[in-house]
Protein backbone atom coordinates (compact mmCIF):
# COMPACT_ATOMS: atom_id res chain seq x y z
CA UNK A 1 0.00 0.00 0.00
CA UNK A 2 1.34 3.36 -1.02
CA UNK A 3 1.27 6.46 1.03
CA UNK A 4 -1.33 8.94 -0.30
CA UNK A 5 0.91 11.85 0.68
CA UNK A 6 3.65 10.48 -1.56
CA UNK A 7 1.40 10.24 -4.53
CA UNK A 8 0.21 13.78 -3.83
CA UNK A 9 3.81 14.96 -3.81
CA UNK A 10 4.46 13.10 -7.04
CA UNK A 11 1.54 14.87 -8.68
CA UNK A 12 2.79 18.24 -7.58
CA UNK A 13 6.33 17.53 -8.72
CA UNK A 14 5.17 16.46 -12.16
CA UNK A 15 3.50 19.81 -12.43
CA UNK A 16 0.45 19.08 -14.52
CA UNK A 17 -2.58 21.32 -14.38
CA UNK A 18 -3.54 22.23 -10.84
CA UNK A 19 -7.25 21.55 -11.03
CA UNK A 20 -6.85 17.99 -12.24
CA UNK A 21 -4.11 17.47 -9.67
CA UNK A 22 -6.31 18.59 -6.88
CA UNK A 23 -9.16 16.40 -7.95
CA UNK A 24 -6.92 13.39 -8.44
CA UNK A 25 -5.11 13.83 -5.16
CA UNK A 26 -8.37 14.24 -3.38
CA UNK A 27 -9.59 11.05 -4.98
CA UNK A 28 -6.49 9.25 -3.86
CA UNK A 29 -6.64 10.66 -0.40
CA UNK A 30 -10.17 9.45 0.01
CA UNK A 31 -9.20 5.98 -1.06
CA UNK A 32 -5.92 4.97 0.46
CA UNK A 33 -5.01 2.16 -1.98
CA UNK A 34 -6.20 3.94 -5.05
CA UNK A 35 -3.03 3.64 -7.05
CA UNK A 36 -3.80 0.73 -9.32
CA UNK A 37 -7.03 -1.03 -8.63
CA UNK A 38 -9.56 1.45 -7.41
CA UNK A 39 -8.92 3.94 -10.18
CA UNK A 40 -8.84 1.36 -12.91
CA UNK A 41 -11.78 -0.67 -11.70
CA UNK A 42 -14.59 1.77 -12.45
CA UNK A 43 -13.08 2.47 -15.86
CA UNK A 44 -12.94 -1.19 -16.72
CA UNK A 45 -16.54 -1.72 -15.79
CA UNK A 46 -17.44 1.34 -17.81
CA UNK A 47 -15.80 0.03 -20.94
CA UNK A 48 -16.80 -3.59 -20.60
CA UNK A 49 -20.41 -2.67 -21.24
CA UNK A 50 -20.58 -2.03 -24.93
CA UNK A 51 -23.04 0.68 -25.86
CA UNK A 52 -25.74 -1.38 -27.45
CA UNK A 53 -28.33 0.13 -29.69
CA UNK A 54 -31.85 -0.79 -28.66
CA UNK A 55 -33.37 -3.36 -30.91
CA UNK A 56 -36.33 -1.18 -31.94
CA UNK A 57 -34.09 1.67 -33.07
CA UNK A 58 -31.93 -0.78 -34.96
CA UNK A 59 -34.95 -2.16 -36.81
CA UNK A 60 -36.18 1.36 -37.54
CA UNK A 61 -32.75 2.28 -38.83
CA UNK A 62 -32.66 -0.68 -41.22
CA UNK A 63 -36.23 -0.10 -42.37
CA UNK A 64 -35.67 3.59 -43.01
CA UNK A 65 -32.48 2.95 -44.97
CA UNK A 66 -34.30 0.41 -47.15
CA UNK A 67 -37.16 2.86 -47.64
CA UNK A 68 -34.77 5.67 -48.54
CA UNK A 69 -32.98 3.45 -51.06
CA UNK A 70 -36.24 2.35 -52.65
CA UNK A 71 -37.46 5.94 -52.80
CA UNK A 72 -34.26 7.01 -54.54
CA UNK A 73 -34.60 4.17 -57.07
CA UNK A 74 -38.21 5.17 -57.63
CA UNK A 75 -37.35 8.83 -58.20
CA UNK A 76 -34.59 7.94 -60.65
CA UNK A 77 -36.81 5.51 -62.57
CA UNK A 78 -39.60 8.09 -62.68
CA UNK A 79 -37.14 10.66 -64.08
CA UNK A 80 -35.91 8.22 -66.71
CA UNK A 81 -39.48 7.54 -67.82
CA UNK A 82 -39.82 11.25 -68.53
CA UNK A 83 -36.93 11.26 -71.01
CA UNK A 84 -37.73 11.25 -74.72
CA UNK A 85 -37.74 7.75 -76.17
CA UNK A 86 -34.54 6.52 -77.76
CA UNK A 87 -34.54 6.74 -81.54
CA UNK A 88 -38.17 7.74 -81.70
CA UNK A 89 -39.35 9.59 -84.79
CA UNK A 90 -40.53 12.61 -82.85
CA UNK A 91 -37.56 12.83 -80.52
CA UNK A 92 -35.35 14.99 -82.69
CA UNK A 93 -38.22 17.10 -83.98
CA UNK A 94 -38.46 19.30 -80.91
CA UNK A 95 -34.70 19.71 -80.52
CA UNK A 96 -33.54 22.59 -82.66
CA UNK A 97 -30.02 22.44 -81.32
CA UNK A 98 -29.14 18.97 -82.52
CA UNK A 99 -30.80 19.62 -85.86
CA UNK A 100 -28.60 22.71 -86.20
CA UNK A 101 -25.48 20.72 -85.40
CA UNK A 102 -26.35 18.00 -87.92
CA UNK A 103 -27.12 20.54 -90.62
CA UNK A 104 -24.26 22.98 -90.16
CA UNK A 105 -21.57 20.96 -88.37
CA UNK A 106 -19.71 19.77 -91.44
CA UNK A 107 -20.14 23.09 -93.28
CA UNK A 108 -18.95 25.20 -90.35
CA UNK A 109 -15.99 23.21 -89.16
CA UNK A 110 -15.14 20.67 -91.84
CA UNK A 111 -14.96 17.84 -89.32
CA UNK A 112 -16.38 14.48 -90.36
CA UNK A 113 -17.01 13.41 -86.78
CA UNK A 114 -19.89 15.58 -85.66
CA UNK A 115 -19.18 14.97 -81.95
CA UNK A 116 -15.76 16.64 -82.16
CA UNK A 117 -16.97 20.12 -83.19
CA UNK A 118 -19.85 19.92 -80.69
CA UNK A 119 -17.47 19.18 -77.82
CA UNK A 120 -14.53 21.33 -78.83
CA UNK A 121 -16.07 24.10 -80.88
CA UNK A 122 -19.76 24.72 -80.29
CA UNK A 123 -19.51 23.89 -76.61
CA UNK A 124 -15.79 24.48 -76.33
CA UNK A 125 -16.05 26.56 -73.19
CA UNK A 126 -17.38 23.51 -71.36
CA UNK A 127 -14.49 21.27 -72.39
CA UNK A 128 -11.97 23.99 -71.63
CA UNK A 129 -13.22 24.09 -68.05
CA UNK A 130 -13.26 20.29 -67.82
CA UNK A 131 -9.62 19.98 -68.79
CA UNK A 132 -8.66 22.49 -66.15
CA UNK A 133 -10.75 20.65 -63.55
CA UNK A 134 -8.86 17.44 -64.35
CA UNK A 135 -5.53 19.19 -63.97
CA UNK A 136 -6.63 20.79 -60.70
CA UNK A 137 -7.67 17.36 -59.41
CA UNK A 138 -4.17 16.04 -60.10
CA UNK A 139 -2.64 19.08 -58.41
CA UNK A 140 -4.85 18.55 -55.36
CA UNK A 141 -3.80 14.90 -55.13
CA UNK A 142 -0.19 16.00 -55.46
CA UNK A 143 -0.62 18.50 -52.63
CA UNK A 144 -2.19 15.89 -50.39
CA UNK A 145 -0.04 12.86 -51.07
CA UNK A 146 3.36 14.18 -51.98
CA UNK A 147 5.79 14.71 -49.10
CA UNK A 148 7.36 18.13 -48.83
CA UNK A 149 10.54 18.43 -50.92
CA UNK A 150 12.45 19.57 -47.83
CA UNK A 151 11.49 16.40 -45.97
CA UNK A 152 14.17 14.09 -47.32
CA UNK A 153 13.34 11.24 -44.96
CA UNK A 154 9.72 11.24 -46.10
CA UNK A 155 10.82 11.15 -49.72
CA UNK A 156 13.10 8.23 -48.96
CA UNK A 157 10.30 6.49 -47.09
CA UNK A 158 7.94 6.98 -50.02
CA UNK A 159 10.53 5.40 -52.27
CA UNK A 160 11.50 2.62 -49.87
CA UNK A 161 8.03 1.62 -48.80
CA UNK A 162 6.34 1.91 -52.14
CA UNK A 163 3.70 -0.79 -52.19
CA UNK A 164 5.39 -2.88 -54.87
CA UNK A 165 7.48 -4.82 -52.37
CA UNK A 166 5.32 -7.91 -52.48
CA UNK A 167 4.86 -7.92 -56.21
CA UNK A 168 6.77 -10.15 -58.56
CA UNK A 169 9.58 -8.14 -60.11
CA UNK A 170 10.75 -8.62 -63.68
CA UNK A 171 8.08 -11.20 -64.41
CA UNK A 172 9.09 -12.79 -67.70
CA UNK A 173 5.57 -13.53 -68.92
CA UNK A 174 4.29 -10.07 -68.09
CA UNK A 175 7.28 -8.42 -69.73
CA UNK A 176 6.98 -10.49 -72.89
CA UNK A 177 3.27 -9.73 -73.08
CA UNK A 178 3.81 -6.07 -72.34
CA UNK A 179 6.36 -5.74 -75.09
CA UNK A 180 3.63 -6.66 -77.57
CA UNK A 181 0.59 -5.03 -75.99
CA UNK A 182 1.82 -1.70 -74.58
CA UNK A 183 3.03 -0.21 -77.89
CA UNK A 184 -0.23 -1.28 -79.53
CA UNK A 185 -2.31 0.42 -76.83
CA UNK A 186 -0.22 3.60 -77.01
CA UNK A 187 -0.47 3.60 -80.81
CA UNK A 188 -4.24 3.09 -80.63
CA UNK A 189 -4.50 6.06 -78.29
CA UNK A 190 -2.48 8.26 -80.64
CA UNK A 191 -4.65 7.07 -83.53
CA UNK A 192 -7.83 8.00 -81.65
CA UNK A 193 -6.48 11.47 -80.86
CA UNK A 194 -5.19 12.24 -84.35
CA UNK A 195 -8.37 10.97 -86.01
CA UNK A 196 -10.59 12.71 -83.47
CA UNK A 197 -12.05 15.02 -86.07
CA UNK A 198 -12.94 12.34 -88.63
CA UNK A 199 -13.75 9.21 -86.62
CA UNK A 200 -15.27 8.43 -83.20
CA UNK A 201 -13.12 9.40 -80.27
CA UNK A 202 -11.06 12.45 -79.59
CA UNK A 203 -8.82 14.01 -77.04
CA UNK A 204 -10.40 12.62 -73.91
CA UNK A 205 -10.89 9.02 -75.07
CA UNK A 206 -7.49 8.84 -76.72
CA UNK A 207 -5.82 10.42 -73.72
CA UNK A 208 -7.52 7.94 -71.41
CA UNK A 209 -6.31 5.03 -73.57
CA UNK A 210 -2.74 6.38 -73.58
CA UNK A 211 -2.93 6.92 -69.82
CA UNK A 212 -4.09 3.32 -69.31
CA UNK A 213 -1.23 2.14 -71.52
CA UNK A 214 1.29 4.13 -69.49
CA UNK A 215 -0.13 2.71 -66.26
CA UNK A 216 0.21 -0.77 -67.75
CA UNK A 217 3.83 -0.05 -68.63
CA UNK A 218 4.46 1.16 -65.09
CA UNK A 219 2.83 -1.92 -63.57
CA UNK A 220 4.73 -4.39 -65.74
CA UNK A 221 8.22 -2.93 -65.71
CA UNK A 222 8.20 -1.41 -62.24
CA UNK A 223 8.86 2.15 -61.19
CA UNK A 224 12.43 2.30 -62.48
CA UNK A 225 12.10 2.53 -66.26
CA UNK A 226 9.01 4.74 -66.15
CA UNK A 227 10.55 7.26 -63.77
CA UNK A 228 13.43 7.73 -66.18
CA UNK A 229 11.32 9.66 -68.68
CA UNK A 230 8.36 10.65 -66.50
CA UNK A 231 9.44 12.93 -63.71
CA UNK A 232 7.56 15.60 -61.86
CA UNK A 233 9.32 18.25 -63.93
CA UNK A 234 8.25 16.62 -67.18
CA UNK A 235 4.69 16.27 -65.97
CA UNK A 236 4.50 19.88 -64.82
CA UNK A 237 6.09 21.30 -67.96
CA UNK A 238 4.15 19.25 -70.50
CA UNK A 239 0.76 19.55 -68.77
CA UNK A 240 1.10 23.28 -68.19
CA UNK A 241 2.26 23.83 -71.78
CA UNK A 242 -0.61 21.79 -73.20
CA UNK A 243 -3.19 23.52 -71.02
CA UNK A 244 -1.75 26.95 -71.79
CA UNK A 245 -1.69 26.33 -75.52
CA UNK A 246 -5.21 24.93 -75.33
CA UNK A 247 -6.44 28.06 -73.56
CA UNK A 248 -4.56 30.24 -76.04
CA UNK A 249 -6.06 28.49 -79.05
CA UNK A 250 -9.52 28.65 -77.51
CA UNK A 251 -9.09 32.37 -76.77
CA UNK A 252 -8.14 32.96 -80.38
CA UNK A 253 -11.16 30.91 -81.42
CA UNK A 254 -13.53 32.87 -79.19
CA UNK A 255 -12.14 36.26 -80.26
CA UNK A 256 -12.26 35.52 -83.97
CA UNK A 257 -15.62 33.79 -83.72
CA UNK A 258 -17.25 36.55 -81.70
CA UNK A 259 -15.96 39.36 -83.93
CA UNK A 260 -16.59 37.54 -87.18
CA UNK A 261 -12.92 37.52 -88.16
CA UNK A 262 -11.74 34.86 -90.59
CA UNK A 263 -9.73 32.26 -88.65
CA UNK A 264 -6.24 31.22 -89.77
CA UNK A 265 -7.29 27.58 -89.39
CA UNK A 266 -9.22 26.65 -92.50
CA UNK A 267 -11.86 23.96 -92.56
CA UNK A 268 -9.85 21.93 -95.09
CA UNK A 269 -11.07 18.93 -97.02
CA UNK A 270 -13.45 16.87 -94.87
CA UNK A 271 -12.15 13.37 -94.20
CA UNK A 272 -8.44 14.21 -94.07
CA UNK A 273 -6.49 14.52 -90.82
CA UNK A 274 -5.73 18.21 -91.33
CA UNK A 275 -9.37 19.14 -91.69
CA UNK A 276 -11.64 20.68 -89.12
CA UNK A 277 -9.60 23.79 -88.45
CA UNK A 278 -8.02 23.80 -85.00
CA UNK A 279 -9.83 20.66 -83.82
CA UNK A 280 -6.77 18.47 -84.42
CA UNK A 281 -4.55 20.68 -82.26
CA UNK A 282 -7.17 20.98 -79.54
CA UNK A 283 -7.53 17.18 -79.51
CA UNK A 284 -3.77 16.78 -79.14
CA UNK A 285 -3.66 19.21 -76.21
CA UNK A 286 -6.63 17.64 -74.43
CA UNK A 287 -5.20 14.17 -75.02
CA UNK A 288 -1.82 15.13 -73.57
CA UNK A 289 -3.37 16.61 -70.44
CA UNK A 290 -5.69 13.63 -69.90
CA UNK A 291 -2.99 11.00 -70.49
CA UNK A 292 -0.47 12.64 -68.19
CA UNK A 293 -3.09 13.29 -65.50
CA UNK A 294 -4.24 9.65 -65.52
CA UNK A 295 -0.65 8.52 -65.14
CA UNK A 296 0.07 11.10 -62.45
CA UNK A 297 -3.01 10.14 -60.42
CA UNK A 298 -2.04 6.48 -60.50
CA UNK A 299 1.60 6.98 -59.64
CA UNK A 300 0.76 9.48 -56.90
CA UNK A 301 -1.69 7.08 -55.31
CA UNK A 302 0.84 4.27 -55.42
CA UNK A 303 4.07 5.89 -54.31
CA UNK A 304 3.02 9.33 -53.23
CA UNK A 305 5.56 10.71 -55.65
CA UNK A 306 6.74 10.45 -59.24
Amino acid at each position, binding site marked *: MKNPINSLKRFIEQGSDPLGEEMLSELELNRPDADGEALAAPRRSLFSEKPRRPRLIHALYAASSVALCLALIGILLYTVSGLPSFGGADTLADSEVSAFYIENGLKDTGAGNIIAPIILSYRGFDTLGESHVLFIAAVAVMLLLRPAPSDKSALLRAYEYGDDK*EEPHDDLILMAGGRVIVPLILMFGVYIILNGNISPGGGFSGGAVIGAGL*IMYLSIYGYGPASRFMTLRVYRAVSACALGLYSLFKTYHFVTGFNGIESVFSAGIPGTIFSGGMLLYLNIFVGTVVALTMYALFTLFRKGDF
Partner: protein
Amino acid sequence: MEAVNALLLIFILACAVSVSLTKSLLSAVIIFMVQSLAMSVVWILLRAPDLAITEAAVGAGVTSLLMFVALKKIHAVRTVKHEKSDKQP
Protein backbone atom coordinates in the same frame (compact mmCIF):
# COMPACT_ATOMS: atom_id res chain seq x y z
CA MET B 1 -29.63 -7.37 -81.71
CA GLU B 2 -32.54 -6.58 -79.38
CA ALA B 3 -31.96 -9.87 -77.59
CA VAL B 4 -28.25 -9.12 -77.13
CA ASN B 5 -29.11 -5.69 -75.80
CA ALA B 6 -31.64 -7.06 -73.34
CA LEU B 7 -29.22 -9.77 -72.22
CA LEU B 8 -26.48 -7.20 -71.63
CA LEU B 9 -28.80 -4.93 -69.69
CA ILE B 10 -29.92 -7.82 -67.47
CA PHE B 11 -26.25 -8.75 -67.00
CA ILE B 12 -25.43 -5.18 -65.97
CA LEU B 13 -28.31 -5.16 -63.49
CA ALA B 14 -27.15 -8.48 -62.05
CA CYS B 15 -23.62 -7.10 -61.74
CA ALA B 16 -24.85 -3.96 -60.00
CA VAL B 17 -26.83 -5.99 -57.47
CA SER B 18 -24.04 -8.48 -56.83
CA VAL B 19 -21.49 -5.69 -56.24
CA SER B 20 -23.51 -4.59 -53.24
CA LEU B 21 -24.13 -8.13 -52.02
CA THR B 22 -20.65 -9.58 -52.31
CA LYS B 23 -18.61 -9.85 -49.14
CA SER B 24 -15.15 -9.68 -50.66
CA LEU B 25 -13.94 -6.22 -51.62
CA LEU B 26 -11.67 -7.59 -54.32
CA SER B 27 -14.52 -9.44 -56.03
CA ALA B 28 -16.65 -6.31 -55.78
CA VAL B 29 -14.05 -4.33 -57.73
CA ILE B 30 -13.72 -7.08 -60.33
CA ILE B 31 -17.50 -7.26 -60.79
CA PHE B 32 -17.56 -3.47 -61.15
CA MET B 33 -14.92 -3.81 -63.85
CA VAL B 34 -16.96 -6.43 -65.71
CA GLN B 35 -20.03 -4.23 -65.44
CA SER B 36 -18.09 -1.37 -67.04
CA LEU B 37 -17.00 -3.61 -69.89
CA ALA B 38 -20.58 -4.74 -70.53
CA MET B 39 -21.63 -1.09 -70.39
CA SER B 40 -19.11 -0.20 -73.07
CA VAL B 41 -20.63 -2.85 -75.36
CA VAL B 42 -24.04 -1.31 -74.67
CA TRP B 43 -22.66 2.09 -75.69
CA ILE B 44 -21.59 0.58 -79.02
CA LEU B 45 -25.08 -0.87 -79.50
CA LEU B 46 -26.48 2.60 -78.74
CA ARG B 47 -24.18 3.91 -81.50
CA ALA B 48 -21.91 5.92 -79.24
CA PRO B 49 -18.50 4.43 -80.06
CA ASP B 50 -16.56 7.34 -78.56
CA LEU B 51 -18.30 6.80 -75.25
CA ALA B 52 -17.54 3.09 -75.52
CA ILE B 53 -13.82 3.79 -75.87
CA THR B 54 -13.87 6.13 -72.89
CA GLU B 55 -15.91 3.75 -70.76
CA ALA B 56 -13.56 0.86 -71.50
CA ALA B 57 -10.44 2.93 -70.76
CA VAL B 58 -11.67 4.90 -67.76
CA GLY B 59 -14.46 2.80 -66.24
CA ALA B 60 -12.97 -0.66 -66.70
CA GLY B 61 -9.33 0.37 -66.72
CA VAL B 62 -8.17 3.32 -64.69
CA THR B 63 -10.97 3.50 -62.08
CA SER B 64 -10.70 -0.19 -61.21
CA LEU B 65 -6.92 0.08 -61.05
CA LEU B 66 -7.19 2.97 -58.62
CA MET B 67 -9.59 0.91 -56.52
CA PHE B 68 -7.16 -2.03 -56.54
CA VAL B 69 -4.44 0.33 -55.35
CA ALA B 70 -6.73 1.59 -52.59
CA LEU B 71 -7.51 -1.97 -51.49
CA LYS B 72 -3.82 -2.72 -51.41
CA LYS B 73 -3.06 0.39 -49.40
CA ILE B 74 -5.56 -0.57 -46.70
CA HIS B 75 -4.31 -4.20 -46.82
CA ALA B 76 -7.68 -5.55 -47.87
CA VAL B 77 -6.05 -7.83 -50.44
CA ARG B 78 -4.16 -10.87 -49.28
CA THR B 79 -0.86 -10.90 -51.10
CA VAL B 80 1.19 -13.99 -51.75
CA LYS B 81 4.80 -13.50 -50.79
CA HIS B 82 7.04 -14.08 -53.77
CA GLU B 83 10.58 -15.11 -53.32
CA LYS B 84 12.74 -12.67 -55.16
CA SER B 85 14.79 -14.55 -57.72
CA ASP B 86 18.25 -13.30 -58.44
CA LYS B 87 18.49 -14.95 -61.83
CA GLN B 88 16.56 -12.24 -63.63
CA PRO B 89 18.55 -9.14 -64.53
